[in-house]
């Protein structure tokens, strides 16, 4: 048991040291960073939180920027799967893009692409599908 603890102690020292000096080192308390919210705002897009998203379903065009697999398993009601490589969506409604959670950047990338293509009203549901699901929101499934 002592040697097991010694191995763990060695690993802890090496891990902490490597993390401190590595340019890829993580924050101990916020390993995934601060989320994409600030980046969404800087990109000129509108950040939408969970409470607002509940009121927007049905009124806007919702684009899902996750993988096709995740989309098939569950998505916001009325959402359409879309990637920046795909054909541009219709311009008849405001658009809200989302992906998995606040740390996922796919929705941000999609929003930037749409804005660059001239869409006037593009928002990003920053909290993402996971927040919607955890809050008990209704979902569509294949």
């Amino acid at each position, binding site marked *: 048991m002592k040697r097991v603890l010694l191995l763990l102690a060695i690993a802890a020292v090496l891990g902490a040291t490597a993390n401190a000096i590595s340019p890829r*080192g993580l924050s101990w308390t916020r390993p995934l960073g601060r989320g994409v919210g600030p980046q969404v705002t800087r990109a000129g897009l509108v950040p939408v939180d969970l409470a607002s998203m509940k009121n927007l379903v049905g009124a806007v065009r919702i684009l899902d920027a996750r993988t096709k697999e995740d989309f098939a398993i569950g998505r916001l009601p009325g959402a359409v799967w879309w990637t920046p490589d795909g054909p541009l969506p219709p311009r008849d409604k405001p658009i809200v893009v989302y992906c998995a959670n606040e740390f996922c950047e796919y929705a941000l990338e999609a929003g930037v692409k749409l804005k660059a293509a001239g869409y006037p009203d593009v928002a990003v549901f920053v909290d993402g599908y996971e927040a919607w699901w955890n809050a008990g929101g209704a979902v569509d499934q294949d």
Partner: protein
Amino acid sequence: MTRIERLIPIVLGLVFLAAGILKIVDPLAFAVSIARLRIAPMAVVGPVAILLPWIEVVAAVALLIPGYRDPALKLLTGMLVLFTAILGIGLLRGASSCGCFGKADSLLNRADVALARNVVLIALAAFAMRRKTTCPAAPASPASGTGR
């Protein structure tokens, strides 16, 4: 010791060395994988993502050091059992990726493949540890017999 018994620690060591190094190279990807499993609270994600890969590497190297082989086997077996339980829960929740090998090839990181792989590795480790505890005792000394 048979060839298989000599081979098992090497196989285990190589698997964990590769897994640990790939996670060390891209700790953010590993942290994201842990978060996606939705098992650990966010407060634990950072320490696990930072330290766990190094535990894998240190234990893998320790398999080759006399006197540390058994502690390393115990450590790796414990980790395997824990990972397998976590993977099982993650799979039930619909997780498809485990991040077991960092951002490496998607087949290595598929949760169902990882679960099967872990079961095999646990069996190998258990065999290696069991073999050590069932070795026959040394024969009695000839000097212990009665005098003539």
